[in-house]
Structures are given as C-alpha cells and as structure tokens.
C-alpha cells in the first residue's frame, strides 16, 4: 500500500512549486532570486509566476535564475535574458514603453476625464434652480407620498 502511494506520488506532477533543494545558500542572493521569481511568468502555464507554478518549465526557470545570479548577473540582466528568449510575455509586469503607454496611462487619463465630468456636473447642479415639488402634478405627488410614506 505504502509503495503504491509512493509510486502514485512520483507519477503525479510535483505539486509543489518551489523545492527546498533549489534554494541558494547565500540568503541575500536567495532573496533576490525569490523577488525575480515573482515577476517572471511561467510561459507554459496559465497566468502564473514561476514562483507559484509547479510546472517543469517553471522549475527550470527558477534554476536558471539562480545560476545566473551565481554568475553575478544583475536583476535587469536576468530579466533581459528571459525576454530575449521568450519575449515580453515572460514579464508579469508589462513594460511602460511604446503602445503600453496606453495601458499605463489609461487609468490616470480616465480619472482625469471622470473627475472633470463630475466637477462640471457638480457645478451645474449647484447653480441649477430646484424645480421643487411643484413640478409634479397633484396626482404624482399623491402617488409619491403614498410610496415614500408607506
């Protein structure tokens, strides 16, 4: 029984993302490595970073990150290394350049537009004359009372 379980466990894909034997001995480097794991996407998976993914590709990518760190590469160099091979899709955080400016500016621009619209509306409401209850017919007023007072 126990053996069968072990076989099954080995057959099943490693469930665990990050394995203890992957860790670097140098805690400073390892901290940097884990930060990099978070911003690199596992391109074989569904919108997951290599830090949380348990796919084989992600494991290889994590090993690669650590190898490059041991070789003395900087964080940017490591990101460049992955972008050069797999394209921008490997970055969890989209870059700011080019057409992506649209993405990054969409929020602030919308806030500006919305804020301006709201400001104009508030000003107009502040200056408008209140039509008051007189604008309702006698009937309507009765019905409104009926609904609101019930």
């Amino acid at each position, binding site marked *: 029984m126990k053996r069968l379980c*072990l076989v099954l466990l080995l057959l099943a894909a490693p469930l665990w993302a990050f394995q203890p034997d992957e860790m670097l001995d140098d805690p400073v480097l390892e901290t940097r490595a884990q930060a990099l794991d978070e911003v690199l996407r596992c391109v074989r998976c569904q919108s997951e970073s290599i830090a949380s993914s348990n796919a084989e590709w992600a494991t290889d990518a994590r090993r690669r990150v650590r190898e490059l760190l041991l070789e003395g590469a900087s964080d940017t160099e490591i990101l460049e290394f992955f972008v050069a091979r797999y394209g*921008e899709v490997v970055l969890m955080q*989209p870059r700011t350049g080019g*057409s992506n400016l649209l993405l990054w500016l*969409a*929020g602030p621009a919308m806030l500006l537009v*919305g804020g301006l619209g709201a400001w104009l509306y508030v*000003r107009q*409401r502040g200056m408008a004359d209140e039509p008051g209850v007189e604008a309702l017919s006698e009937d309507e007023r009765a019905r409104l009372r009926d*609904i609101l007072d019930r």
Partner: protein
Amino acid sequence: MITELGHFALILAFCIALIQSVVPLIGAARRWPGAMAVALPAAQVQFCLIAVSFGALTWAFVTSDFSLRLVMLNSHTAKPMLYKITGVWGNHEGSMLLWVLIVALFGATVAWFGNALPPTLRARILAVQGMIGAAFIGFILFTSNPFLRLAVPPMNGNDLNPLLQDPGLAFHPPFLYLGYVGLSMTFSFALAALIEGRIDAAWGRWVRPYTLAAWVFLTIGIALGSWWAYYELGWGGFWFWDPVENASFMPWLLSVALLHSAIVVEKRESLKSWTILLAILAFGFSMVGAFITRSGVLTSVHAFANDPERGVVLLFILAAFMLAALVLFAVRAHVMQARGVFALESRETMLIINNVLLTVAAFIVFVGTIWPLVAEMLFDRKMSVGAPFFNIAFTPFMVLLGLVLPVGAMMPWKRGKMGRTIRALRPALVLAVAVALLVWAMQTGQSAMAPIGLFLGAWLVAGAATDIWGRTGRSALRPRLARLRRLPRADWGKAVAHAGLGVTMAGIAGLLAWEAEDIRVAQVGERFDVAGYSVWLRDVTEVEGPNYRATRAEVQLGRGDRIIGTVFPEKRVYPVAAMPTTEAGIDNGFLRDLYVVIGDPQTGGGWAVRTYVKPLANWIWGGAILMALGGFLSLSDRRYRVAAGARKTAPEGVPAE
C-alpha cells in the same frame, strides 16, 4: 425518464421566456392590461419549469446516471454526496443551467413582491428579464445541452476536478451567480425605466434592494473563492489578479458604485442617467465575466470549464444586449431630468467622488485584463499583465477611497460643511494616525504598506463608529445608547459594511507586509523555528479517503514553551482524475495564521515542509463577512419590507440612509 422530463421542462421554459419577453412589452406600449398581466404567470411558470429541469439534472448526478454524458464526465460513484450535488454546477452546462435558474428566480421575485410597482413598469421589467432568460436558455439548448445521453453508458464516471471537491469552492459558483444574475435585475429595471421614459425616487428605492442583494452575494462568492485559494493552493495566496477573478471583481466594483448612486436617485433625485448607465454596465461586466470564464479567451488558472466556440455565442449575446441597451440609453437618457440641487460640499458630491473612484478602478481592472488581447491584435505584442501591474495601478484608488469614505459617509445631504464633518471625525483620525505611527515604529525599515493599510483600517472602523454614534443625536449617554438600538437597520448596515472594508484593507496590508516564509527538508521528529514559532514534524503517515489517498503529516506548533496546537497538512492524490492536491494545515488565530504544507519525500530522507506565518490573514475574510453582514442588515431594513408590499404603517425614527 426524469432526465427527459427535465429536458422537456427546459424547452417549455424557453418558449415561455420568449412569450414573456414579447407580449408584456406590447401590452405596456398599447396599455392592454391583459397582455401586461401575462408577465406575472409567465415569470413564475418559467421559474418553476427551470427548477424542475435543474432538479432533474441534480437527480441524475445524485443517482450517478452515467447514461448522461455530463454526469459521466463530471461525477463518480465514489464521490461524497455533497460533491455529487455540487458537481451539478462544477461544469459548463450545469453552471449555465444554474445561471438561468437564478435569472428566472429573480424575475419571479418581481412577480411575487412587485405589486407596488406601476403595472407598465413591472410588465417591462419582466419582459427584459424574459429576454435575458430566453437568450441564455437558448444558449443552453442549442450549444451546451446538459441532457444529452450516451448510447453506451460506462460503468463509472471521470470524477469531478479534485480541486473543486472542497466546501469552499462547492458554494463559490452559486453565490457568484446569484450576484452576477442579481445585476440582471437592475439591468432590467434600467431598461424598463428607459423605455418608460421616467425614473423617480420610487424607482431608486426598488433598484436598491436588488443591487444590495447582488452585491452581498458577489461579496460572499468572491470571498469564498479567495478563501479557497488561500487554503487549497498550497502557498496561501488569496488574490492573483487572474482574468477570471478580475471578471468577478469588476461587477463587484460597479455594483458598489451603483449601490451608492441609487441612494442619490432615491434621496435626492439626481444622478439618474448615470445610475441607469451604471446598471447597464454592471450587468454588462457580469456577462463579460461569464464570457471570460466560459470561453477561455484569456489564459486563466480557472481553465477547467471552457470552450472557445460557445464563447463566441456568449459574446454575441453580450454584444446584442449591450448594444441594444446603450442605444436605448443614448436615445432616451435625456428625458431623465435631475431635480435635486446640491452644493459643492455635500453628501451628493462625496458620493460622486465614490462613483468616479470605483468606476475608474473597475476600468483599470478591465483594461489590464483585456490588454494582452488588445496588444496582440493591434500591436502584435505578446505580453502578460500580472499582479505587479494591478498592485501599482489599482491600489492607489482604494487608498483614496478609504481616505474619503468616513468623511463622505457623515457629510449632510444637499449642503454641508467639510470642516464640521472633519471636526466630528477628529477622534477617529487621531486614533488612526496613532495606529499608523505605532505600526511604523514597530516595524522599522520595512515598506510603508503596513502603516498605510492599518491607518486606513483604523480610520474606517473608527469612522463608522463615529457615524453610527453621531446618529443618536446630542443628549446624555443613556438615551443615546437606547437610541442606538432603535436606529434603522440600514444605518447599522452602512456602518458595519464600511467597517468591514477597513478590516479587509488592514488584513491585506498586514498579510502582504509581514508574511514570513520558511522552506526546508525536515526529518520526521525534527524541530525548527520559523519567525519565533517552533515547528515539530512529529509523524508522516499514509491515509485513505473516500476517493483519494493522502500523505498526512502531524505537525505540532508552539511558541516558546507553550504548545499552540497540532495541524495535519495533507498531500492528496485522486486516482480517478489522476490529480494531486494539497490540504494545508492551518492554525487560525486572530492576529496570525500558521500555515504548514507537506511536500514530497526527499531522496536523502525527510520531507519537504513549507511553513508560513501569515499575520492578519483572517481579517481579509472577516472584513468580507462584515461587509456581507452589513448588506444583509441594510436589506432587512423595514423600508424594503414595506416597499415590497407588506403592511402599511407610518414611518418612525431617524430617516434611514
């Protein structure tokens, strides 16, 4: 036989939904009472028929009728009964059936309780609801029929995705659907008002309970999903900014905005066309959610139930409804004249700020979610938009919202004084600043996230307390305490929900800022320390579940000499689906969770063990529970029961929010 009855009931429901979407509309236009009245029995019968159909499918799952293709694909005889039942909606076809069941249920509530509504408005609401029902029932019947039989039934089924065999996730879809589809009701109200050409305070009062209900269900659904991800996925993440999560988050944000703008319609007869537009967009985003989940057009971790071709049909349904609604809006919105006049410093203005922040936040989530698609189509750039983007682009809006919320909640209607409101909130502000300084002093050298988050938490909770206390008037302590109990439930609902938001914000900030993690190989019997807690791997055994096998570790947790408790993290394998899952061992605490995961056996002996200390983790869901509770309180306010056609009594007490 029962299956065929269910199938037949669904076809009948389709026909009735078609009638319901046409006849009352003509009746309302021509003022034919008979034709308008058709809507009432139609809505009720449609609901009963779909309920029969849903019951038939459930029966097939319960009895493991493997002659049904759907049951064969998603069930197994060895599965516990609970998951046989929840398996009904753990797949595409069944979940769409649940969706139309809820559409019909909401429609039926208008037939049951809507006697106070003007007959033409009611007929039009039910007609629009009928169209939504017809579209989705048609979608089920023509593209995703759950009642298809197999010529040769197998002996057993393929089992439900093991990840879904969990209480948290079993009830996650129904709540989300109640929320999504609850917004179909506000959509129907909005369209009916546009056709009718008028919208008044009574309309606002009717729309609010539906929005409130939808929002409460969305809150519960999202919280359940997030809680599930936290304990099930094995590393304690609670939000991934995954497309499907975003798809549920956008309607949530918009329903919050709608909830607040409908107050302005009800109380002050302003913001009418904006509220209508929000109601349309909120349901639009619900359908976008259904589309994203069901089509798999965006890569997502929720990739267990999708099919691109059906996605196209859903996209057509979505486009048709949105196009029709927006054209109608463009043509008719100008008839919605605002009445209320208000000054710059007023509750109205604050609620407009709330709406701007929430809709822009929803817009950012939307842009971030679809950007990979847009960039690939227009600029031929393949890219990912992951959590880092949303953390940078989205979070500031929530911080701003948290900052202005207590002030806006206490600002008087029509004309207020900013200075006076802030003065009333001064104790809350002092408390919040003190909390932030304390936190900052305690955690030297770390990010500003925790101080900001806990400042917002304290500010929101204390602000809500100030708000509710302020409603008791100015007199001695005792009468005020007595009055506190008699305040309308809506006031309590508002305070509780706002405080809940604060608790959630504090929880998220605390968890993200202070989490500690430890990964190591541990021998059985080994003890080690993680961030001040001692972890003792006492034993690892094999255990057998009903439809899985598990490796179970016994881990004792302690602090100093004190034993905190023992947890049993498991690693399960479901042989039928050939899938492993983790069950984390979690020791829940008020201030922190201890979270232990057992991994693979190592070649050199010992087991991989991951231990996390997760400060304030439970506050995230605790806050969500508070928000939902606030919604329920507000929903149970007597005004709504009264508006729903109950006894006629005079109002009493302070006017409710």
